[in-house]
């Protein structure tokens, strides 16, 4: 008994020592200037495309006033729900705007629990449908199969799924985004703001959805400069969704990329992004936010001075437009994909850190809208 306790103590002490040694090494690596040599000179940029028609992106929210006071809208959030400072909050913002603009009165918001099986999702949607909510908006592609099952059962109720367009039923609308187009633009911004001509991407979980962010970012970087180097890493592999909720791991991954020379880091990592911003702040690098305008976000307030821009994924626009379309019975007019043209994705300018390159970004944006640049949603490797 005594011996085992001594062993345990020794093990604890050893682990502690190892951990400390690891930390010490990390900070050591960070304080030395990154290898690569060319950190003083920024990279040679490719010529900025010209010849855009200059027309503004078509906004779908313009038009006659719509009254939605008769609607009962149900929202089923993914894990985290309202207050996650990311994806779900964006959907909530769309709902709040619909309440303010269209007189929407009765709404109900339910939230998924972590690791819940399929039947919990179905029960949630079914309860909303039984209580007469119509339309019902499911936030997150994890709801695809449950929406398919419940929408078959309630053919007179309208459903929408954010991030999924695989359900082919007359009463189901898919609200999907061209994340790669927005990511392309922040990729361009990253190159223009990089001193080392070396940028990084931190993905939360290595799933197809997040790979779209990576793909667009990398193409944007390549378009801006042929010399730019890219680090791209994910916090966890597919199936382990903790990568979206682990700021400590986000910090480690970002710090690793910075110590290899990257000085502008784009994160698509949900709540782990907080750690990415902290790593950038402590190592004098810059960062790019995702989904919402993160410069204005309370949860990352302490490190907001490193956030030069954010890739906006306007789930709020999609939710708002969908409610509006249901109220006005104009579902067919909704865009198939919320892209740059539909203002479904874009970049944020809060903080004024990219005001000097806004013309460049808008030139690229116009090229994408006009179809002169096509952005692939799959990473090249």
């Amino acid at each position, binding site marked *: 008994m005594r011996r085992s306790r001594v062993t345990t103590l020794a093990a604890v002490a050893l682990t502690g020592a190892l951990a400390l040694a690891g930390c010490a090494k990390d900070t050591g690596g960070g304080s030395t200037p990154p290898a690569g040599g060319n950190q003083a000179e920024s990279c040679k940029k490719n010529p900025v495309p010209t010849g855009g028609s200059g027309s503004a992106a078509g906004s779908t929210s313009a038009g006659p006033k719509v009254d939605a006071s008769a609607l009962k809208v149900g929202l089923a959030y993914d894990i985290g729900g309202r207050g996650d400072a990311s994806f779900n909050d964006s959907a909530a913002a769309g709902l709040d705007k619909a309440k303010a603009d269209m007189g929407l009165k009765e709404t*109900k918001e*339910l*939230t998924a*629990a972590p*690791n*819940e*099986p*399929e*039947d*919990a999702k*179905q*029960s*949630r949607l*079914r*309860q909303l449908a*039984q209580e007469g909510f119509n339309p019902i908006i499911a936030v997150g*592609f*994890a709801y*695809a*199969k449950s929406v398919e099952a419940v929408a078959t*059962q309630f053919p007179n109720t309208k459903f929408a799924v954010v*991030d*999924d*367009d*695989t359900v082919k039923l007359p009463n189901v609308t898919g609200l999907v985004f061209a994340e790669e187009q927005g990511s392309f633009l922040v990729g361009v911004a990253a190159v223009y703001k990089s001193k080392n001509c070396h940028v990084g991407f931190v993905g939360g979980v*290595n*799933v*197809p*959805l997040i790979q779209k962010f990576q793909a667009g970012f990398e193409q944007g970087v390549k378009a801006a400069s042929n010399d730019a180097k890219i680090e791209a890493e994910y916090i*966890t*592999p*597919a*199936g*382990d*969704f903790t990568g979206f909720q682990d700021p400590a791991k986000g910090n480690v991954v970002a710090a690793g990329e910075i110590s290899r020379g990257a000085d502008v880091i784009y994160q698509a990592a949900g709540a782990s992004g907080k750690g990415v911003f902290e790593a950038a702040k402590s190592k004098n690098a810059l960062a790019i936010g995702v989904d919402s305008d993160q410069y204005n976000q309370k949860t990352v307030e302490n490190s907001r001075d490193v956030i030069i821009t954010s890739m906006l994924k306007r789930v709020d626009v999609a939710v708002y437009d969908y409610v509006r379309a249901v109220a006005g019975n104009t579902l067919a007019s909704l865009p198939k994909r919320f892209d740059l043209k539909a203002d479904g994705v874009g970049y944020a300018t809060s903080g004024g850190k990219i005001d000097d390159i806004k013309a460049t970004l808008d030139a690229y944006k116009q090229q994408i809208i006009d179809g002169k640049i096509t952005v692939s949603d799959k990473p090249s490797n």
Partner: protein
Amino acid sequence: MRTTLRGKLLPPVLAIVFSVLLCTIALVISGDNPLDAFGAMIGQLFRGTTAVDTLNSGAVYYLAGLAVAIGFQMNLFNIGVEGQYRFAAVIAAIIGGEIVLPPGIHTLVIIIVAVVAGSFYALIPALLKVYRGVSEVISTIMLNAIAIGLIAYLVSTDAFGVQVGNNIGTRPIEESGWMPGIPFGDNGTLFGFVFVAALVGFGYWVLLNRTRFGFELKASGESPTAATAGGVDARKMIMTAMLLSGGVAGLTALPELLGRDHEYLQTSPAGYGFAGIAVALLGRNHPGGIALGAVLWAFLDKSAVSLDNVGVPQEITTIMQGAIVLSVVIAYEIVRRMELAAEQRRVGRQLGRDTSDVAAGGSV
């Protein structure tokens, strides 16, 4: 000493009462009405598919609980049920999706594959323990982490995965490989695997109480040295117990895989293995007890959706689950001591002398 019926039933009842009290306090503090909350939890059973869903999930937790309990019987703490069941689920889903066989045979092949895959994943910690003395607690925890990586690779599009929209998963199993359930119309469909789970529970009871192996298993658990002296091969027992535990763990995901999902997605739920540990503790490794524990656990799980629907924080169910597990362990210990003291008094009376000294010393 045999525990009385009171000794068996009192602790779980006490634990449930205690956790309800605790949740009432938590609800009052957070400004919610406890009556609304408990009303919603009970009321859900009579609405929609909740009752059937509870039994379906109960089967899942029952299998996980049995897998853990087999290990517990001989003091093996198989934390790896989590990794074993997920690994088995993916392998079974992949093979089930790649092949097409006549109905029945297809299903049977998937079940066998799952059992073999679960056993295989449990073989690694078993070998490490038998030949290298590595604690199964450490090795199975590590293998759980490795399973996550393995699964991520196996369901990726580079390996066996197919992408549908933004989700990736294994190729869907053809209808010939499904297991039919009992449909209750709008109230859901009871998985056919619920009955398989009950059969496995019966098999577990027979194994432990009616076979030589079961006797040796329990003997090794209670006193390894005595068992060895009695001619039980400890290594063989560890191997068999771990492989059996892994095999049953392999069945855990099958109710959902064969009865509803027919594919393993990257978003498929994890955590059944850990819940299995709690369920086995609740049921004290007894097949009937584990069944009650599994259904209770599933019921609390399902409550989360209904609580959220009436505006009560759904995390209350997690508090309740945690409180039940903690308090059931304490309640069993208290009741055990009470029974021990009562037994001593009874023996003392029969012998006609005062045994308060012995009772105070606690030795029997």
